[in-house]
């Protein structure tokens, strides 16, 4: 768009980050002696998926013996909305080293977006339900913050809070015997994330020259010239003396260079 093609997988990462928070929930069933009888790893799924793949994955031979396997978690992204309260200066750029030493990657500050995610948990037994919920809820006060790297080429880690907004419980036990009973706990979360624009590669400025002229017009002779270049000795030590420095073309952006400032006056002569 606008001449840029980019994909940082930011939203995908938010989804994976969200799933990662709930991917190791175990439900333990105890016997009468309070000893562990069963340890059940609760499966978690990103709900929206292709129907044919779901069928192929789950029931390829059309002989699946059961209706569904419980308990299980599933979540889905339900909404993305701009969050103006977290807006940053639009002109600030994040930079990092580019593909080569003479290049820098740059990116404007990201755009804050709230990503709403609904986590549904389905159970057969209430005991499983409350045990699962007890393992989730204490971590969200009301948010849990992950530190994630959203753009690999920039490499910065962002603290992304995930806020638990609401919880609702559906248990339609009060119906006829022939009606299905489902216990579903629904939790609505908001990920306070950022969406990033394109990363640009630009050359590194290795020399700045400022010419001072005492009067207009522009054709007036220069009276002073300030030159700033990186200074690096051959042994890798920084220097502020440009005459001792190696060529600025050979100084990498990643080197420990100094700043060599040269000031030239032309009051006594001409440029």
């Amino acid at each position, binding site marked *: 768009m606008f001449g840029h093609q980019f994909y940082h997988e930011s939203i995908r*990462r938010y989804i*994976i*980050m969200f*799933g*990662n928070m709930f*991917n*190791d929930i175990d439900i333990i*069933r*105890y*016997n*009468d002696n309070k000893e562990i*009888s*069963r*340890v*059940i*790893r*609760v*499966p*978690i*799924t*990103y*709900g929206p*998926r292709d*129907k044919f793949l*779901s*069928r192929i*994955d*789950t*029931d390829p031979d059309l*002989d*699946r*013996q*059961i*209706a*569904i*396997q*419980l*308990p*299980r978690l*599933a979540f*889905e992204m339900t909404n993305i909305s701009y969050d103006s309260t977290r807006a940053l200066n639009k002109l600030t750029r994040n930079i990092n080293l580019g593909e080569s030493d003479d290049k820098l990657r740059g990116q404007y500050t990201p755009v804050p977006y709230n990503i709403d995610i609904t986590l*549904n948990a*389905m*159970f*057969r*037994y*209430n*005991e*499983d339900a409350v045990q699962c919920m007890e393992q989730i809820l*204490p*971590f969200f006060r009301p948010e849990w913050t*992950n*530190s*994630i*790297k*959203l753009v690999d080429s920039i490499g910065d880690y962002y603290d992304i809070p995930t806020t638990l907004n609401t919880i609702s419980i559906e248990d339609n036990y009060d119906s*006829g*015997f*022939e009606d*299905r009973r489902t216990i579903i706990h629904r939790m609505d979360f908001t990920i306070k994330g950022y969406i990033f624009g394109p990363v640009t590669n630009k050359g590194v400025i290795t020399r700045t020259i400022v010419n001072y002229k005492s009067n207009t017009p522009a054709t007036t002779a220069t009276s002073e010239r300030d030159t700033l270049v990186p200074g690096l000795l051959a042994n890798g030590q920084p220097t502020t003396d440009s005459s001792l420095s190696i060529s600025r073309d050979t100084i990498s952006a990643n080197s420990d260079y100094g700043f060599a400032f040269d000031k030239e006056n032309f009051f006594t002569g001409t440029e």
Partner: protein
Amino acid sequence: MPSTNLYFNNFEFSQEQNLIEDLIIESIKIYGIECYYLPRTLVREDELFGEDALAKFDIAFPIEMYIKSIDGFQGDGDFLSKFGLEIRDSMVLTIAQRRFEDEVHITETTPFNEAEGIGRPSEGDLVYFPLNGKIFEVKFVEHEAIFYQMGKLQTYDLTLELFEYSHESIDTGIAEIDAIETEHSTEFIFIALEGALPFATAVATVTGQFVTSTSVTFGGLYETAEFVPRVTFSDPPPSITAVPEISIVNGSISSITFSNVGRGYVTPTLATIEGRQAIDGWAVSESKFGDYSYKLGAKETDTLFTRHEDVSEGYFNFHLYVPSGNNTVYGKVFTVEDTEPDWIINVANTANSTYSLELQSDGTLYANNVAKDAWNFFSVKVEDDSGNQRITLFKDATQVATSITGTQPSNLFKRIVNVNNTRSGNVYIDHLFIDTDLSSVLSYTNTAVSNSGTITTLLTFENSPPTDPFTVFANNVTIDANGSINAIAIPVVSGGEIISANITMQDAPTSFPAQATATVTNNEVVLLTITNQGQGYVDAPTITIQSDSAGGRIKLEDNVYLIDSGIRYANTDPQANNTLFENDTTSFIDFSEFNPFSEGDRW
């Protein structure tokens, strides 16, 4: 008289009912299909949530059922829910009631862990439908689908829905059914690998239920630095509480025996004897007329009652029993103490074979040679003889001693004091009788004796004696090497004779295994130090010494370990993304900061 037509019996004719039922069963056998019926076994019912997450299905009964849903499965069919693929097939099967009762015994029907099941198909049970090899759950049992045909119900209609598996245990022994658990459970399975390095062995010595010493028989090989193998002793047999039995004869404890000598007792062991005893003075061991008599003890102060009235004429009777064990019986039964010398009736065991009645210097009236182990009826008569009192002794209505006439005593019955057997043993008295009304003048010093109204027969003792509860503890209990009871010394029970008693043993202490620590020197276990001797061992326990932690791995030839011990393994749900979320996040989530609930190195 019934209100319906007498000549038509449409609802109570059992032969017709049985015929209909036979036809239905035969029809189902012809047109039905053999399914498996799996009753639900409740393991740990949660009374709060009204569910049992540990429910299991461990038996399957083949039984024919008729497919009522002839047009195919009902329900929502296959669809993609937010939780993935769901299959909501449902159907109705019909089963004959009698066939169900024949095949599934009532104790094997749900709830199954109770003494008796409900004896019918239950909601929550499972049915294996062989045509598609799927498991259905019974959602509803309709027992009146065919409405009282010939006055009886013959079938159940089972409304079934494809089973929502939630990690119930299914272990019927039928592979097709048990596959549900193995294929769909995400339960963790721990794989513990056998140790590759040899572990040490040791034997234990037991003395009197306790592990008193150990001896290492093989040191094993322990290569891991600072690894201390865990030492485990096999459990001792459970302790058993002894069951004693107590026997009461003639008012005292005669023996304490055991129907179960128990096991696991340690010294000291306590037995508690509780019961009721007659208050001191009353006897249950010998009786003349009723169940009880009065026992005159060996105390001179054993006063039955006291009378305060002068009587110059009259008589009193009493029945006396002297046990044979009392070889020398010489005691005062009745005496008059107000004036000296007293008149006393003594019961003596002398060489004299005759009864005599004489006034001794102390005023003793002798009745010698009282028959032992038998009741003797004595009567002492006092009468006025021309201004003097004459005393005569009768035994069994026969005068056995010469009458004595004298000036003393002038008030024979002024005070009747039971002072008996000052030398040894007890004697018993019953049916004391005085021929005058003493009700207003008697002062009972023994509160257990009471009378009212006109008293001629003072004491009959035919009613139940007053009793008191008693408790004594027998702590002189001897046990053998296994902690079984050898004997209990009969404790002394003070007070009156015992009427009834019950003995209970202290619970045998719970047995528990011994504990020890191992000492490794030069890669071998050289010593086991007992830290707890355990309790309750009958035989020497088995000692298990943990193998080196390095042993629980598969080691390749190049000394690379292939698999660590005790890996956790869980089935993967085909729709689950747990692993994806685990793996994909490692590249972009910073886990360097632990969560606030973390422990150690676990994030």
